[in-house]
């Protein structure tokens, strides 16, 4: 393959290059470690590539401005870290109910509150799903390499455009600041939002058979309509009709749920004959893979499942594995979040053991190996 396409990138830089490749033309955000390199790279590259960058006065304004940019027709992104992710939650829900495409990057650092800035953690996994109030769809990618930061940022834009919904790219500080040679693919699939046809009446929130997701016109493109965070009718105007409320909420959730098989991604390593299964994400998955290989060299039949979408979780893949692997180990840089999802899915098929870590340090291979071996020998 063409070596000339391989470049040394930091995880955060790869995210921005992926975003530009996907067609990002608008970035609004607020500085926060360990995600600031995303804003810095976007500030440098967007004006070169026909786009616009703005640093807003706070995290809330960052996401609000990005939503405005998207409604003006530009593919938009904002990025943040723990405390900023907490601040963005209300407007994340706004983009869900108003069905506005958006990519939100969250580089996890240790919390709660200011916590341990720039120390890696995985404390936002549940916040990513439940952080904003009310029922809403969630698509959340969790890259575990620099290359995946590039690839999944592109996919995040594609899914946001396709499903008219905000999509999260979330990873831990280790992946965001890691540097690696990344081969830039020559061809990638790019999806753009559907736009309404001229001359036809436009109902921006109308769901029809075979056309689950209504097209989205840009403000200023000739279609006049109303967008609100209130429960609304097919025109976008506020509605208090109980039947319509039910229809609207179910629609924003179902448009993603129905396509779970298309969205969900995971990777498996050594699972074919595995007798013990690790389930891990991000930098923890990298440590787990090393540990699995070490165990294999010692005759322990270990395997690894890496969810690439934490939401929706790769439920079918885990269910298939748990039907034959009865010992599952979930190492996490928190006091247990992913483990709840694993337990919910395996429903007692297997014993599930959490390996927790909240020191603000990444999992070391020896530490994970020793703790996991103690579980295996039980």
């Amino acid at each position: 393959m063409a070596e000339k396409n391989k470049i040394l990138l930091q995880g955060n830089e790869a995210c921005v290059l992926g975003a530009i490749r996907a067609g990002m033309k608008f970035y609004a955000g607020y500085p926060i470690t360990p995600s600031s390199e995303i804003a810095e790279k976007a500030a440098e590259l967007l004006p070169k590539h026909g786009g616009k960058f703005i640093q807003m006065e706070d995290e809330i304004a960052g996401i609000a401005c990005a939503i405005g940019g998207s409604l003006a027709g530009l593919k938009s992104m904002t990025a943040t870290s723990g405390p900023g992710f907490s601040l963005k939650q209300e407007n994340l829900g706004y983009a869900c109910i108003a069905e506005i495409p958006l990519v939100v990057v969250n580089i996890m650092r240790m919390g709660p509150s200011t916590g341990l800035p720039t120390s890696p953690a995985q404390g936002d996994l549940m916040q990513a799903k439940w952080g904003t109030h009310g029922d809403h769809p969630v698509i959340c990618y969790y890259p575990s390499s620099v290359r995946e930061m590039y690839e999944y940022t592109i996919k995040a834009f594609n899914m946001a455009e396709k499903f008219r919904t905000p999509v999260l790219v979330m990873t831990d500080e280790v992946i965001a600041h890691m540097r690696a040679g990344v081969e830039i693919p020559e061809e990638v699939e790019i999806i753009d939002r559907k736009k309404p046809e001229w001359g036809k009446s436009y109902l921006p929130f109308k769901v029809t058979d075979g056309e689950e997701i209504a097209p989205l016109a840009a403000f200023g493109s000739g279609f006049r309509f109303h967008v609100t965070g209130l429960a609304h009718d097919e025109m976008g105007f506020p509605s208090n009709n109980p039947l319509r409320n039910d229809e609207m909420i179910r629609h924003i959730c179902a448009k993603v749920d129905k396509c779970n098989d298309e969205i969900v991604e995971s990777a498996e390593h050594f699972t074919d004959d595995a007798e013990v299964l690790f389930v891990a994400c991000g930098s923890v998955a990298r440590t787990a893979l090393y540990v699995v290989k070490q165990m294999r060299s010692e005759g322990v039949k270990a395997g690894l499942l890496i969810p690439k979408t934490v939401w929706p979780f790769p439920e079918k893949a885990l269910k298939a594995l748990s039907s034959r692997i009865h010992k599952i180990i979930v190492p996490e840089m928190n006091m247990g979040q992913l483990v709840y999802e694993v337990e919910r899915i395996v429903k007692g098929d297997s014993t599930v053991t959490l390996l927790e870590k909240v020191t603000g340090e990444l999992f070391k291979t020896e530490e994970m190996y020793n703790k996991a071996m103690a579980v295996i020998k039980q």
Partner: protein
Amino acid sequence: MSSWLNYLRTHRFPHIWCAGCGNGTVINAMARAAEDLKLNKDKTSVVSGIGCSSRGSGYLDCCTLHTTHGRALPFATGLKFANPELEVLVVSGDGDATAIGGNHFIHAARRNIDLTLVIMNNNIYGMTSGQYSPLTPTGALATTAPYGNIDRTFDICKLAEASGATYVARATSYHVSLLKKCIENGIKNKGFSVIEVLTQCPTYFGRRNKIGNAPQMLRWYKDRGVLWKPGTKEDPDKIYLGEFVNVTDSEYCESYEAVIEKAGGKK
């Protein structure tokens, strides 16, 4: 049909506001200003936050965006910056613009981005039924100030001026000709424009504070309103109206064109 009515979504009437509310008068003035300036409805956007004032966006026939509490300005900033061809107006209330949205207010002014912000100041949180806002006068009663409000108030116009807005004016729901003219001049200004409109809330402010019903509140504005002129020695019992600032300075979206040029990008 009068052509200014074309700027209203009359099919959305009756509106949700209380009898005697001044907000409809402000929306009326906005529609008339739009008609006078012959604004292209397809290229005009009205953005609002949350509160009584912010329901105004739904009654104007253009691209309308009803956002979250206090955040209308950053949403509007995104729209305008992404597409500077859009004429973007923002309607907000005293609580929405200066309490929860206070930070966005001063920063939008500082950037001098080409937005026209109309703040309906009714001195109270009306939508949530009468709690005190940053514009509730000291000593006034509110549901959360049952013994009288001890907070001091903002002067919205002075705050806007100090923050860098290039057009700043005040009118009331009684002084409708002035109001329309100020909105028009605000739209014409290439930069951040702020029009504070004192508007009566008989339901939650006037009644509790013994100012009276809607006509009595309008009379209150009429009796106290005087046109401000440079050098005016201000009397605290008067309401100063008219244009306080109308200057030219670099506009944010235009300034970004220079960034694109320096970066070697295409416009």
